[in-house]
């Protein structure tokens, strides 16, 4: 008995998770629930990376997206307390126009995406050595630029949210 049917079934479950949870992020009114659904979308996406044989990327996905970015977003939700808005004020005024534009862009792209019929090669596993060689040999300079970018982002975020001591004291 072969287990060939397992991969499409797992893919279907993960794809349903990604799309349903992603749509719920846009449609749900409670912002904390939206943040947690976003984390669920990222987890399903990590499963997709495993199906594609990119285990290292899946691990980074869980660490960075599900761990760090979700926690940052939840901090943002916590620091900007707000009542749940009435559903009428939920979407912006340009919603119908935005829907038309997005549909006009999405339908050709989705039709085009189904033209890729070739099967993805079976994952070989153990993608870390090749990834590390690429990052630290071929892409060493962009790697350094990325670390400078992260430093700049960290300093910028601290400066932006720092309270102005002088104006606080004057008040």
């Amino acid at each position, binding site marked *: 008995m072969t287990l060939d049917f397992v*991969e499409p079934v797992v893919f279907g479950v993960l794809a349903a998770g*990604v*799309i349903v949870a*992603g749509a719920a992020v*846009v449609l749900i009114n409670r*912002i904390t629930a939206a*943040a947690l659904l*976003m984390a669920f*979308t990222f987890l399903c*996406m990590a499963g*997709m*990376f495993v*199906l*594609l044989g*990119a285990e290292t*990327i899946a691990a980074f*996905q869980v660490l*960075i*997206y599900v761990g*760090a*970015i979700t926690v*940052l*977003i939840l901090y*943002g*939700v916590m620091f*900007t307390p*707000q009542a749940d*808005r009435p559903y009428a004020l939920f*979407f*912006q005024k*340009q919603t119908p126009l*935005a*829907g038309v534009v*997005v549909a006009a*862009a*999405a339908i050709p*792209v*989705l039709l085009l*995406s*189904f033209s*890729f*019929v*070739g*099967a*993805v*090669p079976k*994952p070989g596993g153990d993608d870390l050595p*090749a*990834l590390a060689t*690429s*990052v630290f040999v071929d*892409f060493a300079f*962009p790697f350094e630029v*990325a670390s400078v*970018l*992260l430093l700049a*982002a960290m300093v910028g975020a*601290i400066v*932006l*949210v720092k309270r102005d001591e002088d104006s606080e004291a004057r008040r």
Partner: protein
Amino acid sequence: MSVPLGAFIAVSATLFFIGTAGVLVRRNAVVILMCVELMLNAANLALVAFSRRYGAVDERGSVFVVFVFVIAAAEVAVGLAIVLSAYRNRPTVDVDEIRAMKG
């Protein structure tokens, strides 16, 4: 029987357009940041899938995904800082009501 490449690309495109719709229609600045993260993640899936199928050099697509992770982390940190400082000036995260810089 393995999953065709088009299925991965279709999921990626669907999630990307869900994120686009969210950025365009939601009023809450924090939710807009979440939708931008969804779009970045959809692009990651397309990068990994195409590099699996067509990549001549191993793991080149994964390298780009690592850099997208870095950009996403920097973007969400600075974006949330901007949202928080805007919230401190006027207690709202509704992007329709933040119009101090509107020309």
